[in-house]
């Protein structure tokens, strides 16, 4: 019995988020019937998929009580370098470009990983520093230029616009990332140990879990996903510029937190993350549809995040109070 109750409380969050998304979708649909059209749903998912991919990496980082502020810069850097490469060697297979971008991200992630795991630099500081460094390097390698659509071979642009099994590639990549992440987090030892490290780092240390190696791994994965996203970003918009994705990290973190990932570590589920990302995607994509003045958008996003987390807190408080009342009958 007791076990049941706990599970219910813990799924409450996802349920609430789900209901909120449905309600929001309904409200938007009332204002603009174009919202639930298939083409719009597809474009919404396409535009959200990069956010979703990054959110997976960020969740891993947050699970270990870390944070990564450098991903916007990593996206720009990996995107820029990859774009420069394909512009110079148009014959390069697109998948190789993807691999190159991801590898660049992995290297940046490894540097952060070393700083955090080996030298115990606080994640917020290490990534703040790397954010500046990598952004600066992006401008340096590009020499202030952009790489434009005509310079990129079609095969490269097709990465983001092509379809696999009738579904846009970006969505396919996001789905694959989510499936792999679900498996990784729930069914592999490493995944579960990442939860353990975030849940109680000291315990992890004494029970012989390679805490530092896992922290290193987490930032490496985050870097790799950011690098991958950089390539997808550039392919999607068919342009690479130095100021790509400035400040994007905060959106990713906000999406994670909406999805129930705790920045205090150890707590967060892929299912919740998915809902949080979708909600954020709707906010970013649907507001233009319902004729909301662009000047209201930022305020609305902020209020939604605040209301969502506060409602969640209230619901949990109430649940706990009623649980207490039940207990009071002892």
């Amino acid at each position: 019995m007791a076990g049941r109750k706990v599970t219910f409380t813990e799924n409450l969050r996802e349920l609430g988020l789900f209901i909120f998304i449905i309600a929001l979708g309904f409200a938007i649909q009332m204002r603009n019937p174009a919202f639930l059209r298939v083409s719009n749903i597809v474009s919404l998912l396409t535009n959200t998929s990069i956010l979703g991919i990054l959110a997976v990496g960020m969740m891993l980082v947050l699970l270990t009580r870390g944070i990564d502020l450098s991903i916007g810069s990593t996206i720009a850097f990996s995107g820029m370098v990859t774009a420069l490469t394909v512009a110079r060697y148009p014959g390069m297979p697109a998948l190789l470009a993807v691999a190159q971008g991801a590898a660049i991200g992995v290297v940046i992630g490894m540097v952060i990983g070393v700083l955090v795991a080996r030298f115990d630099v606080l994640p917020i500081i290490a990534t703040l520093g790397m954010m500046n460094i990598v952004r600066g390097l992006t401008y340096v390698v590009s020499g202030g230029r952009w790489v434009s659509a005509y310079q990129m071979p079609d095969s490269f642009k097709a990465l983001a616009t092509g379809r696999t099994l009738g579904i846009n590639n970006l969505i396919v990549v996001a789905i694959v990332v989510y499936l792999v992440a679900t498996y990784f987090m729930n069914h592999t030892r490493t995944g579960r140990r990442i939860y353990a490290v975030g849940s109680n780092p000291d315990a992890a240390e004494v029970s012989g879990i390679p805490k530092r190696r896992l922290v290193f791994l987490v930032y490496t994965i985050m870097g790799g996903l950011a690098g991958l996203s950089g390539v997808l970003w550039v392919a999607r918009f068919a342009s690479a510029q130095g100021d790509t994705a400035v400040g994007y990290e905060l959106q990713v973190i906000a999406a994670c937190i909406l999805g129930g990932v705790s920045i205090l570590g150890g707590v967060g589920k892929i299912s919740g993350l998915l809902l949080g990302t979708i909600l954020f995607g709707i906010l970013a994509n649907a507001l233009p549809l319902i004729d909301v003045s662009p000047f209201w958008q930022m305020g609305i996003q902020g209020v939604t995040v605040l209301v969502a987390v506060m409602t969640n807190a209230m619901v949990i408080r109430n649940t706990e109070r009623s649980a207490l009342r039940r207990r009071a009958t002892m």
Partner: protein
Amino acid sequence: MSEAIANSDDTPGSILELRRITKIFPGVKALDDVHFDLRQGEIHGLMGENGAGKSTFIKIITGVHAPDTGEIVIDGRKVEFKSPIEAQRLGVAAIYQHVTCYPDLSVAENIFMGHEKVTGLTRRVDWKAMHGEAQKLLDRLDANFSSRERMGALSVARQQIVEIAKALSTNARIVIMDEPTAALTQHESNELYRITEQLCDAGVSVIFISHRLEDIRRLAQRVTVFRDGRHIGCWPVQEITQDKLVVAMVGREISTMFPKRRIDIGEEVLRVANLTRIGYFRDVSFTLRQGEILALTGLVGAGRTEVCETLYGIARWDSGSVLVEGREVTIEDPLHALRLGIGCLPEDRQRQGLVLPWEIGKNITLPSLRAFSRLYWMDEDRENQAAGELARKLNVKASSIFTRVLALSGGNQQKVVVAKILSRHLKIIILDEPTKGVDVGAKAAIYDIIGDLAEQGYGIILISSEMPEVLGLSDRIVVMKEGRVTAQLETANATQEQILKASMVVDATEAAAEVAAETTADGSGSGE
């Protein structure tokens, strides 16, 4: 004491032996030429004051630290651990007081973290096998909760059981328990004794570390004492008296633990009537008078701490009344409580009592910053002087009040917390488990202080799970069980049996009736 060491050499059946272990940390010799041996199926008590080197000792056995010199022998073979995993593989497991649990993960995962069950080919986590195995282990320990429960939702005692299950799951042959009973009540401790003995019957050897002499007497066959990183002696438990053991730990005699003093009990300072906080306790009533020590006892979780937290303004009560010196009061927060003259020595010294990285002096004056400042401006000279005086009065052992609290032993830390309370003018002092995790020498000092306080006319509420403490110190005893007061006794007439009965015995039919009655009461919508 050298005669005691002799018998530890090459005893057949010795499963673990540590020889001439020395471990030096920068600036401190944590272990100095230490011996230890553990026999097959034995429960070996390990005692020593805080700072005696026990923790380092555990870390060396479990492979967290490597010794500087000396050797570890398991099953007659010399071993060297490069990581805790290697120690685990050789069958060494440690159960720490509270550090090793993952509150956000399930019980099964807690048990198998680090050696998860995986399926053969894909190496994926085999949840079914893990839960099945975990449930089997829990059943073996007679635990009545599920392996799917979230660890953080369990009581300390249950977490302890999970830890033991974890040790069993690694097929550990050598289990180290580090003060497992520190956070447990008598009842829960008894349960733990039973499980530990069960372990030994199954051939596991146990190193049982505890501050409580009672644990050692009940469980252990032999006891080893460390002091200041040195091995003092090792005796069969039957052959050593309690006093001798204390002397070995402290290095000096403690004549009387509980000096009986005759104190004049004065006016009533506190009256609590029908105090209720839904979900925690209900209808709690008692009074407290000047110079009186009122013991509040019962099992952990009986609502003792919650009552005191409510009186100290940490939480609000839902109904009932509190009168301080005859005037009815509301208590909003601890500051309010302090202004009313109520002070509190909280249960968890390190978390609630002290700012650990701070100096002694700053800690002492924290509750009375106002008194040492004018318009927020601190008068540091006056502050230091007052802090020094209090520290001297309580005999805090440190070179100056600028020593960090972090570096003090548990007992001295507790003295600092007491000094904090004394830095304000109070009438009522709540002491929540004042001797928890404190070594024997300091315990006596704290008892002494409590006596002094009563003599000075403070009304004292003492929460304690240790029966000798309750009986030895208090004037009256209030026993709680599951949020209710079940007995109020004059200490002079009280017996241990009476108290235990009031705090533990549950009459099944009576309990059922209570539940039924209150469900309907709740249903009628009385509410908050």
